[in-house]
């Protein structure tokens, strides 16, 4: 979502991506996000866009967390969170990351302490965010 809206709209997700490109924080991405971003751009803007978006995520990320690495965490989190969010949260727990930047109310409803919206995340860097949450 951050990678997609950040490229398509003038929004807080874009600010997050700019901060990342400036090296203000370290980006760690799950294999699931990488696949989803590539697929989204491929299906909506063509094969080349899919490839380039994948390369963008790979280059911006200091690490891509593979599914194989987080089996234990995924097993432990089963039933505690929606299946679609399982892999991302498992990656966060596996790497002991400070923040899970996303715009998904399911994380909030499940009480995920690492969850933060792009708007709140941007504020941490003393930037003035856009009005929208994403």
């Amino acid at each position, binding site marked *: 979502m951050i990678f997609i809206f950040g490229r398509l*709209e003038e929004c807080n997700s874009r600010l997050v991506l700019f901060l990342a490109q400036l090296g203000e924080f370290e980006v760690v991405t799950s294999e699931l996000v990488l696949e989803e971003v590539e697929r989204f751009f491929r299906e909506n*803007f063509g094969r080349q866009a899919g490839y380039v978006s994948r390369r*963008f995520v790979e280059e911006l990320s200091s690490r891509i967390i593979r599914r194989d690495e987080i089996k234990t965490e995924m097993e432990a989190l089963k039933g505690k969170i929606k299946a679609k969010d399982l892999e991302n949260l498992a990656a966060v727990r596996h790497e002991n990351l400070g923040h899970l930047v996303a715009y998904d109310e399911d994380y909030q409803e499940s009480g995920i302490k690492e969850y933060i919206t792009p708007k709140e995340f941007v504020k941490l860097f003393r930037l003035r965010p856009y009005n929208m949450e994403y």
Partner: protein
Amino acid sequence: MVQEKLLVRLSGATADVLNELVKRGYFATKSEAIRVGILRLGENFGLFKPAMHYWRELGEEIKRTGRKMTHDEVLEALTRLEQET
């Protein structure tokens, strides 16, 4: 877009390394290996940032297709993607 055409003479180690890179299949052609090498140099000296390069390229690719998605269309596509995944 700026274009440069160069004739570069290589011998010794540089020629050996270039031949080996192509022979081992890391690059399809010598030209490709040289292009990537230049970008790596740019990266080392802080002149080129791959993420920014791909960011711009993605923007150009989106523009090239001429497709504009509304916020709701993006959300819909994302929801579908999540369900299928």
